[in-house]
């Protein structure tokens, strides 16, 4: 009963600003920046422990102070007594903003024609006004890597914050060239190629990858030597990976493919991140030895083989971490990126542990993406990406009360919530008045 009452109050509080706003026709609450003092919370910093009765001061888009007895100094004060502050949650791999309705091709922009299109920029096609962005951020996910998919080198992924009116305002300062590593797995049960054909296709793709790589190397060498080059945007982009300017984000899942990819990367002297890594637990030691960081997920996923234990995907992240791999999590989703905290909870329950699971969606992706100076923990000097919740944000019964992105206080509303407000007590109801 007590919990029921608490949940109810929490919800009421969460919806209060929106309910109040809905009273005035035509008025719209925008994200707004300014100075905010989040007072007397339990602050889960991630990197510096958990601090009781602590306040956080936000100004100029940054966390300026974390401490006790902070004076308001003209800031808007938000009483957080009994509440928890966490860093904004980061999803290490999504298609958020690149697709609106996945069965309607006109709204699908994450894949283009061609096998080698690393110059395609995810950031270009991010739709800042996608409904899914508003739906996602009130869950506490404030930042995502959005990744193109399709061919061998489908494009360049970008880290985005889930607030802003242009892609540049949303850009989170990290890009990586995506690669779909040649696969020995099947795309699904509809994939009825013979085993031999699957193998052949994989070998052919790997040969193509090698040829392209050699071309890109030549391109870079010629460029360095000052030669006049024709317009090769694909080679230009790949050469940035070879020169170390951009990392290579390699989607690879089957165990033998992971081993193959480790071998392929060896000696190339490039920055590499593996993503997907569904069968990583089978070769965790090898990944650890190669010191390649991993963005794995989705956690709530079926095992890749019928003979696998039912919990293989739940346990994968934990087994990778135990072997010494640096692990971040992803949903690999578009409209339901909001479920990332729950994926993290499953990883926690099946071996990763709560503390590591929290890191896997905050500081670890920030470090893997080289932006840990700005994201991933509640520390003075970092960007003001944080959330205020009634409890553990991985629990469905907790409510997320406030979200700040780049110092902007985000309205806790979206179409899902507005529909709730309109239809909970429909008028007219069953009978016309």
């Amino acid at each position, binding site marked *: 009963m007590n919990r029921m009452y608490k949940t109810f109050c929490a919800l009421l509080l969460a919806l209060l600003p929106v309910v109040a706003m809905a009273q005035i026709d035509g008025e719209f609450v925008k994200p707004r920046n300014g100075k905010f003092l989040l007072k007397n919370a339990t602050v889960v910093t991630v990197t510096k422990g958990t601090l009781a009765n602590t306040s956080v001061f936000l100004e100029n888009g940054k966390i300026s102070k974390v401490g006790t007895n902070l004076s308001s100094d003209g800031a808007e004060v938000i009483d957080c007594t009994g509440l928890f502050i966490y860093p904004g949650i980061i999803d290490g791999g999504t298609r958020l903003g690149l697709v*609106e*309705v996945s*069965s309607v091709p006109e709204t699908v922009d994450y894949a283009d024609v061609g096998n080698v299109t690393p110059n395609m920029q995810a950031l270009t096609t991010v739709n800042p006004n996608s409904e899914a962005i508003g739906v996602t951020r009130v869950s506490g996910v404030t930042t995502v890597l959005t990744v193109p998919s399709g061919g061998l080198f489908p494009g360049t992924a970008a880290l985005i914050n889930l607030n802003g009116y242009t892609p540049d305002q949303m850009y989170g300062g990290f890009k990586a060239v995506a690669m779909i590593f040649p696969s020995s797995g*099947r*795309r699904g049960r509809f994939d009825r190629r013979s085993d031999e054909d699957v193998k052949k296709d994989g070998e052919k793709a790997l040969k193509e990858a090698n040829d392209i790589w050699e071309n890109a190397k030549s391109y870079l060498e010629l460029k360095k030597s000052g030669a006049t080059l024709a317009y090769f945007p694909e080679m230009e982009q790949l050469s940035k990976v070879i020169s170390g300017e951009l990392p290579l984000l390699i989607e690879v899942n089957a165990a033998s493919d992971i081993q193959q990819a480790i071998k392929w990367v060896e000696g190339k002297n490039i920055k590499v991140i593996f993503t997907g890594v569904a069968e990583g637990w089978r070769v965790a030691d090898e990944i650890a030895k190669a010191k390649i960081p991993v963005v794995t997920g989705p956690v709530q996923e079926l095992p890749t*083989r019928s003979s696998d234990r039912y919990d293989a995907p739940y346990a994968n992240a934990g087994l990778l971490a135990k072997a010494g791999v640096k692990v971040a999590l992803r949903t690999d989703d578009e409209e339901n990126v909001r479920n990332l905290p729950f994926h993290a909870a499953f990883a926690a329950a099946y071996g990763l542990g709560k503390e590591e699971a929290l890191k896997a969606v905050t500081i670890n992706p920030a470090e893997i993406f080289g932006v840990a100076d700005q994201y991933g923990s509640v520390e003075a000097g970092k960007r003001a990406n944080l959330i205020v919740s009634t409890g553990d944000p991985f629990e469905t019964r907790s409510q997320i009360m406030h979200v700040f992105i780049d110092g902007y206080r985000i309205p806790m509303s979206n179409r899902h*919530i507005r529909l*709730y407000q309109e239809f909970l007590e*429909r008028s007219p109801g069953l009978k016309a008045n």
Partner: protein
Amino acid sequence: MKKHIYLIAAFLGLGVGISQAQVQKGSVLIKNATVLTVTKGNLESSDVLVQNGIIIQLGKNLTAPAGVNTIDASGKYLMPGIIDAHSHVGLDVVNEGSAPITSEIRMKDVVNPTEIGIYRALAGGVTVSHAMHGSANVVGGQNATLKHRWGSMDPADVIMQDAPRTIKFALGENPTRVHGRGNGIQPRSRMGVEAVIRNGFNEAIQYKKGWEAYQLAKNQKGNTTPPPAYNERLQTLADILDGKIIIHCHSYRADEIYMLINVIKDFNIKKVVFQHTNEGFKVAPEIAEYTMGASVFADWWAYKMEVYYSTAFNAAILQKNGALTSINSDSAELIRHLYHEAAKTQRYGGLTDEEALAMITINPAKQLGIEDKVGSIEVGKQADLVIFEGHPLSSYAVPQMTFVDGVKYFDIKKDNNDQRQWVAATEMVEPIFLRANEEAHRCMQDVDAYFEAFQGAFLKEKH
């Protein structure tokens, strides 16, 4: 002739005898659990005694009769076996997409008791699933209600023989795509969907009248009227009109839901459950008043046009408007954590623990017409039970043991690599399925060709 009938009857009787004899019933005493009965509140550190597959006693300090195993569940939670009102697990095929009405099709004929999805569902605490025909047709096939008695090679053992008949209907994009756009026949639009249903029921009424006229005439002296041709398709529709079958209707938009409510009112049909029902929240008062409620996703939306204007608060709105509401999976992946899906109603609408748990137990039981047998922990009910580490509505909950009819079919301590019962010759070299999740949603399985024809490489969505 009569002899033959006796022979056939004896043979059938034998068949039933055998299949029932093979269904195992267990006895067990589960002690010191927090018992979440769902219908009668929570019992702290209490015991549940099961004999021959039936719950016979709830209380404290119960002792096990001789030969009955005791399981100590101290610090753990015990809840009724989870019921999934929308699943395709354990089926070899899902769609017979050859006509807008295929009511003669029976999913009972394609049940595969060795499908690994059944074991994985047990590992998520699911003991009963509603194995449905797909959504390619306006009136699809008759569904099978399964009890997850893992380990048998006989389909009859996993079919819940005492469950009532149900049938799949489907509205909206799927039947109009397959038949209208795919085959150039009605329905091409939501108007056509209504017409197909009304035409079907009216034809069934004519068919019934034909048989009634024949039965009357048969008893007249010197009658030579031949019987009408038997038609399983129309007979099944007639059975729906007679209240013998529960309709489970795939639907998304409020307009099509409202349309079917008007149709059932006109034909005096009472037994309808809406499936998916993403826009059910818009017509929640009507669903509450005229139907057996809605079985919905916790949070799926935006994967196709007809679910773009959804809300994750759907279940809460339906519940608070008095509609009987359940949370389902329609997915071999989601079925593994329906307890977590139900918990999302607390994030999206602040439902109580009791309300949330009911959505995966007693509510779907009611929608499948089996609420007198399963769906809660009560004396006299079948002993389908799950032991959880952690409260089942916590994101960190882990199912430990799952019982069907008092027999333990899942035990996390005994779970091991390769739980398959049987390996197909074609899987001796085991295939690796990447992104299996996309394939796990099988409402439109077996009609891929229709999608490929219209959506090419962008095909992803099959619900």
